[in-house]
């Protein structure tokens, strides 16, 4: 009796498993979608969208997962190699290059419905392309600007908002002269995006990450000038002390505490200031220029994983996320630059001066190159920048070392 019961249970379980595998008549296609958190609101927002989508599509069930950003890359790598990856995954666009090159992602050109690709701002969708294929959709896009503390500007007697680096330097001098733990300019030397902070200066001095000869532009004369531009802030004591110990969060905290005159950051910083820096009266201007107007643009990608068995269903959900209404709601929630053409004219973005500046700078935005080994090149640069900022290595020697490392990696790639 007992044995019979056990046998029945085992058989029953096996049957259910088989039916789930092959998709019985009543089974739904399950789509696992993994998102990274920009804030605590990100996960619930997508969960809500999935609920709506599931209600409208009885044959598909989208399951939402969400993780903090720092864990995304490791988790995705581990999952793909173990065959347990979700069907849809969020990632930084710069990781996408490597994943696409290694065959981990599905090209989506043939999955998209006609006309869908045309709803995007071309700059941002083009970034998701490589080797003639589109590998994902730009879920978030941001440009960067100069945040300045109006109160400190006034107290220091700076009336003009700096438009050039020299003006920024003079303004920083006056602000630092106020004393009392107040510094003119925040400079980043540690952790995520340290290289990006240097790109602001590189690009506005007319430099580029990859030179016209296809080799690293890290040691070009423009790059040297860009680095010396930052060094003068450090050597004159106009930047916060310990640049090599300051991460993006450290700078943002300092600015939110009213201790920094200027810092370069992106639209997400508005949200942090609204919460933590209520007393800080600030404005946002274009990145100061030396020779060329530029800003750092970054997109994040949401892609379909190659191993997925439900690619068309996954694409259907992505198109739902990126419909005009939902994408606008997401942009408003997290404060990102519009990626759909239709959003660009939304009053939320055009009438709010703290958002409009990022829209204005869109046309001059530059991006990190899509190279599979970019992370390693950036790490080499970061490491040398820390030595340069702390005064242990001469500018040119340090930049040449970073360029040599990048060139070696570029050569290995081919």
């Amino acid at each position, binding site marked *: 009796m007992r044995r019979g019961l056990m046998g029945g249970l085992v058989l029953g379980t096996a049957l259910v498993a088989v039916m789930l595998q092959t998709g019985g008549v009543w089974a739904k296609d399950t789509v696992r979608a993994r998102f990274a958190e920009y804030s605590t609101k990100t996960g619930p927002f997508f969960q809500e969208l999935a609920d709506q989508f599931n209600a409208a599509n009885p044959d598909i069930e989208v399951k939402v997962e969400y993780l903090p950003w720092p864990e995304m*890359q*490791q988790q995705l*790598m*581990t999952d*793909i*190699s*173990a065959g347990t990856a979700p069907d849809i995954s969020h990632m930084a666009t710069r990781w996408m290059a*490597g*994943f696409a090159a*290694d*065959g*981990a992602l599905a090209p989506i050109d043939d999955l998209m419905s006609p006309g869908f690709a045309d709803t995007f701002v071309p700059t941002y969708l083009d970034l998701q392309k490589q080797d003639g294929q589109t590998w994902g959709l730009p879920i978030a896009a941001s440009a960067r600007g100069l945040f300045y503390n109006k109160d400190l500007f006034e107290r220091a007697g700076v009336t003009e908002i700096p438009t050039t680096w020299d003006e920024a330097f003079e303004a920083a001098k006056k602000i630092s002269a106020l004393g009392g*733990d107040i510094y003119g300019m925040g400079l980043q*030397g*540690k*952790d995520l995006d340290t290289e990006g902070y240097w790109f602001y200066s590189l690009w506005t001095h007319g430099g580029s990450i990859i030179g016209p000869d296809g080799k690293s532009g890290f040691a070009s004369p423009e790059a040297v000038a860009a680095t010396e531009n930052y060094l003068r802030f450090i050597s004159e004591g106009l930047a*916060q*002390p*310990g*640049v*090599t*110990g*300051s991460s993006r969060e*450290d700078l943002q*905290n*300092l600015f939110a*505490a009213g*201790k920094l005159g200027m810092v370069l950051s992106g639209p997400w910083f508005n949200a942090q200031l609204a919460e933590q820096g209520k007393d800080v009266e600030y404005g946002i201007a274009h990145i100061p220029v030396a020779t060329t107007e530029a800003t750092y643009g970054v997109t994040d990608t949401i892609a379909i994983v190659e191993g997925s068995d439900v690619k068309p269903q996954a694409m259907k959900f992505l198109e739902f996320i990126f419909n005009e209404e939902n994408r606008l709601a997401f942009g408003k929630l997290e404060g990102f630059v519009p990626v759909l053409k239709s959003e660009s004219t939304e009053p939320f973005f055009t009438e709010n001066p703290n958002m409009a500046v990022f829209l204005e700078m869109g046309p001059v935005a530059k991006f990190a190159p899509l190279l*599979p*080994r970019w*992370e*390693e090149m950036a*790490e080499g640069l*970061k*490491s*040398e920048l*820390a*030595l340069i900022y*702390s005064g242990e290595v001469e500018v040119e020697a340090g930049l040449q070392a970073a360029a040599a490392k990048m060139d070696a990696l570029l050569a290995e790639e081919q």
Partner: protein
Amino acid sequence: MWALLLVAPCLLLSISVIGYPIFDVLRMSLFDISRIGVVRDFAGLENFTKTFADPVFLQTAWQTLIWTVAVVGGTILVSIPIALILHEDFYGRTIARTIVLLPWAISLAMTAVVWRYVVNGDFGTLNMTLSALGLPVGNYPWLADARVAFLIEILVGILVSVPFTVTILLGGLTSIPSTLYEASAIDGASPFNSFRHITMPLLWPFMQIAIVLNVIYVFNSFPIIWIMTNGGPSNRTDILITYVYKQAFAFGKLGNAAAGSVIMFAALLGFAIIYLYLTRSRGANSDV
């Protein structure tokens, strides 16, 4: 024979659970692996030669040695007097023992997060305290200088290793019969002499255990360094485990990461063999 049959399932499970990951890492270190874990061609020792050719690896290996020796050595030096004091019978000893053990109950990651805030230049309590004492530290950014940052990380490492070590040493002290001290006191030995000739030799086996286990924990200890400095500035606070992590999960070089892991495994295995050899010969001597 029958007994062997009974333990066989357990043995098999243990071998597969412990052995498989080791086998897999060894295999990965010998192949060309894509960033998504696809095993491509056999690469021979290429991953190893690449790893040894990386100046950051060599620098990191040296730092790992400093880190391990400094943290374990510091821990033992700090733990001996603490264990001796806690072994004495005094009023409030239970409370004192609890306080010493408390850091053990807090996760390493949280300890590291707390200390990162303590030494923060602008908002940290360390600078506030020092300034309140009238020292001219200002907003000194403790983690911006690699040497200072590494020193702070070593001190935090010692702090979190002390409770475990003190526990082992206290166990050792309890096992020393008090009659030995009474006899030596009758013979007129000074407290220092009885410490040197009774306590230290009898405590030595326990210290060996403490040293070996600490070396293994500290050598592989990831959270303190990762959370406080991420190995920076300029890789000068990286140790092998953070190096391997970066190779695997930031750069997608799983083959190199596997080679690094194998090298670490070999180093610890070598250390364990030396330890076994030393303790075995000691055991033989004491039998004689």
